[in-house]
C-alpha cells in the first residue's frame, strides 16, 4: 500500500492514426484506456471523477512523436514494466507506452526537442546544400501567437543536426527550442525553406516526427 497517491510518468510514442488526433482527443483516448486497463489509477473526487492526466509539450495535429510524456497518479504500487504492458494491451495501435517511472523532473524543465522533417521533393539531392546554407543565415519567420503576428529571427533557437537525401526525400534533422518563450514550431522551419527556396510541390507534402526531448541545456535527455 502507498501512503498517498504516487506520481507516475509514462513515456510514449504517438504515430500512425494517432498523429491526427488533437490533444483533447488524446486525453479522451487515454481516459477510456485507463478504465479498460483496470490499473489502480487515482481519480479526482466529486461528481465527475477523472484521472488528472498531464501531458508534456503539445504536438501539432499531423506530427508524430517517439518521445511524449504523460503524468498521472496511482493508488497502489505497480512496477513500471507492468504499467507499460498493461497500457499497451488497451492502447490503440499508434499509441505505445515505452517506459513508466516515478518522475523527478517537471515538464517545465524541457528546453529542446529534436525533429525529423521529411519533404517529398523531386531531385531531393539538389536541395541538400541549398537547404544547409539557407539555414546558416538568419531564419526570419512570422510567428503568430495570441497577442498577434511578429516577424523575428529564430536562428538562435534552431540547431541543424543534418540535411541529407534519403530514398528520394529530403531529410532534415533539427533541434528546436521548446521552452515557453522561444518555442519554435517545426512548421516555421518548413515555411521558411518554402519561402526561401521555393521548394516545389505542395507545401503540405512533408512529415514531421519529434524524436527526442532535452532539458534546458539541449544535451541532457529529459526524463
Amino acid at each position, binding site marked *: 500500500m502507498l501512503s498517498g497517491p504516487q506520481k507516475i510518468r509514462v513515456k510514449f510514442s504517438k504515430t500512425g*492514426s494517432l498523429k491526427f488526433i488533437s490533444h483533447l482527443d488524446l486525453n479522451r483516448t487515454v481516459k477510456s484506456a485507463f478504465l479498460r486497463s483496470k490499473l489502480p489509477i487515482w481519480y479526482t473526487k466529486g461528481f465527475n471523477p477523472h484521472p488528472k492526466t498531464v501531458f508534456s509539450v503539445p504536438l501539432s495535429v499531423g506530427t508524430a512523436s517517439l518521445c511524449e510524456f504523460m503524468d498521472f497518479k496511482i493508488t497502489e504500487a505497480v512496477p513500471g514494466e507492468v504499467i507499460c504492458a498493461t497500457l499497451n494491451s488497451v492502447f490503440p495501435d499508434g499509441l505505445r507506452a515505452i517506459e513508466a517511472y516515478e518522475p523527478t523532473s517537471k515538464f517545465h524543465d524541457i528546453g529542446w526537442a529534436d525533429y525529423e522533417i521529411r519533404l517529398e521533393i523531386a531531385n531531393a539531392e539538389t536541395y541538400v546544400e541549398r537547404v544547409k546554407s539557407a539555414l546558416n543565415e538568419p531564419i526570419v519567420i512570422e510567428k503568430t501567437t495570441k497577442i498577434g503576428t511578429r516577424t523575428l529571427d529564430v536562428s538562435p533557437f534552431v540547431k541543424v543536426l543534418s540535411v541529407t537525401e534519403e530514398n528520394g526525400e529530403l531529410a532534415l534533422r533539427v533541434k528546436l527550442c521548446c521552452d515557453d518563450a522561444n518555442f519554435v514550431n517545426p512548421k516555421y522551419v518548413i515555411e521558411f525553406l518554402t519561402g526561401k527556396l521555393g521548394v516545389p510541390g505542395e507545401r503540405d507534402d512533408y512529415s514531421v516526427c519529434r524524436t527526442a526531448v532535452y532539458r534546458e541545456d539541449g544535451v541532457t535527455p529529459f526524463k
Partner: protein
Amino acid sequence: MKIPERILKKVEKPARYTGGEWGQVIKDKNAVDVRFAFCFPDTYEIGMSNLGLRILYHVLNSHEDTWAERAYAPWVDMEACMREENIPLWAHESGDPLKEFDILGFSVQYELCYTNVLNMLELAGIPLLSKDRDESFPVIMAGGPCTYNIEPIADYFDLCMIGEGEEVIEELVELYKEHKKKGFRKQAYLRDAAKIEGVYVPAFYEPTYNGDGTLASFRPIYDDVPVKINKRIVKDLNKSPFPTKLVLPFIQIVQDKITLEVYRGCIRGCRFCQAGMVWRPVREKTTDVLCEQAKVLADATGYDEMTLSSLSISDYSCIDKLTDELLQWTDERKISLSLPSLRVDSFTKELMEKISTVRTGSLTFAPEAGTQRLRDVINKNVRKEDLLRACRVAFEGGKTQVKLYFMQGLPTETYEDLDGIKELAESVIDEFYHTPNRPKKAPGVTLSTACFIPKPFTPFQWEAQCDMDELLARQKYLDGKIKDRKIKYNYHDAKVSRIEAVFARGDRKLNAALMEAHKRGLRFDGWDEHFNYEEWLKAFEAAGVDPSFYANRAFGEDELLPWDHIDIGVTKEFFLRERHRAYAETTTKNCRETCNGCGANRLGGERSCCPGLKK
C-alpha cells in the same frame, strides 16, 4: 491508411478518416472468403453511433472467413480532395477501395441520406443503378428502417433486408460464399437470396400504374419469388448476438457512450409513430442478462457513461430492478447512467434522487399535441395533469428549464390545438411559481415543434401532409401567439419535412428524381448548410414527378400502397381501424393493458406482452 497525409492535414477532423481505432477488426484479406463493408451514408460521428451497425459488425466478424469493415460519407472538404486526386472511397480498416469488396451493406436510417447513398457509390467508382452493375462490382445491400418503404431508392440496391438484420445478414453472406465457390453469377445469387425470409430484391418485382399515377399492381416477375416479403425479427433477445468489443472512436461522436439495448418494440401505439409499429412485437431482455452485458461493455470500452436504450425506456417491465442493480456498481466504476425519453408518468422524485443524470440533465417531455382532444387523436396518452406533476417534481428538485416536443400539422389539427401548445407552456411556467420550494432562478420553457410527416406502416399512412403555406402559416401563428419571454419556440424547417414526406411515402417513380438531385450535387440533405429546397424542386420537375402527389395527397383507403408488398406483421386492417378511431377521437389501450389484435403476435417472440404467441 492510404489517404495521403497532406490531405489529412488539410481536412477538418482528420481522425474521421484514418481508421486505426481501438477495437477495429483487422484480418488478412487473403485468408477470408468474403469481404463486406458496412456503409453509413452520413458522417463518421453519426455512423459510429449506430447501435445496429455495432451489432452487425460483431456478427459478421465473428466468422473467421468473413471480414467486415466500415465506410462513411466523407464530409464535403474530404470529398473535394478525393475528386481532385481521384481517390476512390475506401474502407476504414484496410484502406482498400470499396469497389474491391464482395458486398457493401448500406444502413439506411432516414430519407435525408438517400442522396449520400448515391454520392458514396459514385465516389467508390461503382455504377449507381443495380441494373448497370454486373458480377465485377460488389453486391449492394440495404438495411435499416427505410427499407420498410425502399421504393424511392430501390433501383440503386440489389437487395434489401427487411426487419432486424442479425440473422438474415449471416444467411446472405453464407449464400454468397456458396455462390462464390461455384462461380459467382449475380442474377443466380439474387434469385436464391430472394427465397430467404426477409429479403427483398426490388428488380424481381414490377409495378404498373393507373392513369392517375397510383399503383395498379405490384407483382413478382418470377414464380419462385414471394409475393409478400415478411419482416424478420430476432425472437429471443436474451440470446441475440451482442458485441463484446466495440470500435472506440478517437473523436467525439454523437452517442459517445455505452448503449445498452433493453428491449425492442413499444407497448404504446402512438398513431404517427413508425418505430412503435415496425418493431412490434415487444421483446424484452431479462435484467440479469442486461446486467451481465453492461459489465462486459464497461470492461471492453472504458466509457464513463452508459445509456439505457429503447423506444420508451420507462415501459420496461423491470426498470426499477434494472437501474438498482446497475447503480450498485456503476458509481464505483465512475460510470454515469442515463435514461433517454422519459415518460411524464415515470418521472418521480425517487427516480430523480436515484439517477444523477436525471438530476442534472435537461428535462424533456414529448406531449406531441397541445390539447387533450388532439392527444387522443394521435393516441399519445399524456395528460396535462401528469405533465404538470412531473414538472413540479423537477422544480422541487432544483430544475428550472423544461423542453417540450410537439408536432404541428397533425391530422385534424386546428388553431385551437396550436393555442393549446402555448397554453401548456404557460401552465408549466405557472406551475413553477406555484411550487413553494422552487429554485430562486427564472424558469424557462423551450417548445420544439416538428412538422407531421405521414409514415408508412402507421395508422396515419394515408394522411396528407399540410401543404407548405399551411405549415408555415401554423408556425407563424404560434410564433405570434407566444408573448411570454420565458417561453422559447423553435420549429423544424418545413421544407425539409416536405422532402422527407415525399420520400417516406414515395414509389419507384422517385428513383429518377433522386438521380436528378444527385446530378445537381445534392447531398447531406439532413444538414442545414447543404439542404437546398429549390434544387430539389428542380430535380422533381426534371424527373417529371410532382412532390405534392406524395406529400400532400390523402391516399385512398382502397389504394394499393407502394409498400403493401412488405409484411411487418401488423396488418393493414389494424391500421385502418386505428385510423378510424383517431377520427372518432378514441384512444386505444397499450399492449400491456389489452391486446388490440394488430397481428404482430404471429411473428412470435420471447418475453413479450402479446397473447397467443407463435413459438
